């Protein structure tokens, strides 16, 4: 839910409650005030009638209202002494409205020439249901007008006020450390936004430093490890050329050279993985997967010939993918190399390239590999102890970088790797 809408909902609910309670209180006050002023009027009338009666005794014969707003009725002395002035609401028939209408009544008693009388004065009341109805609609309108104005104010003014916020947000959304962008400053005088901006800029700055130092570390690690490995390899290669070696020693030296080489591969693969995961391969170009596949298959032709592997390439169309050239090469060559080297003698490799998928199937071990762990780092065929176990992790890291999907299946006794190049997202 957007911030604007959220504040709108909260404001609406609060206004609804505030206005609701306020209108009830206001209504009760208003009603009391009206009663008060009518009661004063009735009292005033009583006094006027009593004064007028001194000069005009015909008033005493006014036993029914019949047009006037009072009636007088004689009562006994005992009755009169129990009397107090009573104001009350009651209903009376009104001829013009042909209905019972609310009236305010004052019952009072007085003594005139030793006779006791009861005086009843009335005054018509505002119709309460009308009052309630009118007030209700007034309140509803007030509510609607308030909410509408809030929506308008939100949309016009607040949107403007929040503009720097959205600018900062958009900048952050599109910000990529590896593109080496500087943090941007949007123009705002709002204190909170300036704080937000400063906080994000500090964060970006810090991340850039960490990123740079991580890259530096990667490179340093590479440098530090590669040189000793180079020394081991080269010295042993020279030793192998010595004239005084016996074959057994030579074999041992060759084994150590192979180990050094394995160390080199491991180091290079790990650094490569880190680089891929750090998105350090930025340049993209249109890569023909068909061409790559054919190139690498022909590169291993001697090996496939040697193992008498039958190659089948089925392409329906040219698959062109926008990606980094080195990564594309690594992805395809790793998959092809696996298919070639993990194959059996007289085996078979089938490459299928469709509009959005590269699939390679090969014969090999007769049991399925674990489709879940196969892409994990250092997950390898226990019989091939010299493998780095990083080839498929590299493939997966490359696919993740571009949002491609790489899967393994064991179909009809064949190991099948497929890469779906349809991008679900582009992180680069």
């Amino acid at each position, binding site marked *: 839910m957007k911030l604007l809408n959220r504040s709108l909902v909260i404001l609406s609910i609060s206004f609804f409650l505030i206005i609701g309670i306020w209108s009830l209180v206001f209504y009760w006050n208003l009603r009391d005030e009206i009663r008060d002023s009518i009661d004063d009027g009735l009292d005033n009338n009583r006094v006027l009638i009593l004064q007028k009666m001194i000069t005009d005794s015909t008033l005493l014969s006014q036993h029914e209202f019949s047009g006037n707003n009072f009636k007088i009725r004689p009562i006994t002395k005992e009755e009169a002494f129990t009397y107090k002035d009573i104001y009350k609401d009651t209903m009376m028939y009104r001829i013009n409205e042909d209905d019972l209408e609310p009236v305010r009544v004052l019952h009072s008693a007085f003594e005139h020439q030793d006779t006791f009388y009861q005086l009843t004065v009335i005054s018509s009341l505002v119709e309460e249901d009308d009052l309630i109805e009118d007030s209700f609609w007034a309140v509803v309108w007030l509510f609607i007008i308030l909410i509408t104005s809030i929506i308008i104010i939100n949309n016009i003014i607040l949107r403007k006020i929040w503009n720097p916020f959205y600018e900062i947000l958009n900048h952050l959304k599109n910000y990529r450390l590896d593109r080496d962008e500087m943090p941007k400053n949007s123009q705002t005088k709002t204190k909170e936004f300036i704080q937000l901006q400063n906080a994000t800029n500090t964060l970006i700055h810090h991340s850039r430093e960490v990123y740079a130092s991580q890259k530096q570390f990667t490179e340093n690690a590479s440098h530090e490890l590669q040189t000793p490995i*180079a020394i081991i390899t*080269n010295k042993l290669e020279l030793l192998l050329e010595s004239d005084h070696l016996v074959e057994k020693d030579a074999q041992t030296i*060759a084994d150590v050279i*192979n180990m050094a080489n394995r160390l080199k591969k491991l180091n290079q693969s790990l650094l490569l993985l880190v680089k891929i995961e750090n998105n350090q391969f930025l340049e993209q170009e249109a890569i023909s997967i068909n061409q790559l596949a054919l190139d690498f298959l022909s590169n291993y032709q001697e090996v496939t010939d040697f193992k008498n592997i039958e190659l089948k390439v089925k392409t329906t169309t040219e698959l062109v993918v926008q990606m980094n050239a080195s990564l594309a090469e690594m992805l395809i*060559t790793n998959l092809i190399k696996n298919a070639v080297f993990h194959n059996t003698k007289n085996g078979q490799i089938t490459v299928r390239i469709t509009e959005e998928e590269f699939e390679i199937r090969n014969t090999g071990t007769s049991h399925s590999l674990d489709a879940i762990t196969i892409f994990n780092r250092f997950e390898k065929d226990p019989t091939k102890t010299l493998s780095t176990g990083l080839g498929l992790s590299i493939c997966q890291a490359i696919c993740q970088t571009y949002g491609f999907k790489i899967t393994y299946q064991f179909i009809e006794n064949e190991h099948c790797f497929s890469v779906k190049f349809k991008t679900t997202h582009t992180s680069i």
Partner: protein
Amino acid sequence: MKILVIEDEIELQEAIKESLLKEKYTVETAQDFTVAYEKIALYDYDCILLDIMLPGGSGFQILEKLKDMDKSENVIIISAKDSLEDKLNGLALGADDYLTKPFHIAELNARIKAVLRRKKYDGKNEIVIGNVTLDIDERTLSIAGKNIHLNRKEFDILSYFLSNKNRLITKTALAEYVWGDEIDQADNLDFIYYQIKNLRKKLDDSNAEVVIEAIYGVGYKLSQK
């Protein structure tokens, strides 16, 4: 042929020097920026092996200095950084090749030979040993004046051997040179034997004056008969 090895890691420098001496080059060494700077200013070399990260300065500065002095030395960068940026940077500054550490001795030999060949003024980029002539540009082999057909991989293997005459080439080094770095230790390298067998047959059939021998089962060596 005079070669300057600029490398701060003494052990590596010595290994390279030892290997280069076997090739009968005159070898000088420099292990920091200042010494390297002095040497390139004072002497001329046929080839310079240049490490990028040096105590006291960067290999790139050496390249710039060479450019400033209008020297046309062949420079091969040997760097631990496998960075495309450095590679392009170095080549733009006039380096002839870029070799990432760790490398095989045979690989270094082949690169140096290639660079030196290019420098020759007769315009021919070929390796001649005995009656065997390998034309690198045309990718052809002629033995005693007769053209012999080689497939792509056989050509690569032979050129590697000819650049490493009398030197041992391990199977791994050969596989990496011919089939690329992706070739794994785990991969059965028996197919190399098969390739060598074919190549030997072609050489023998044409009475070539070179021979490829297997050494202890760990590698091969080409020598002149």
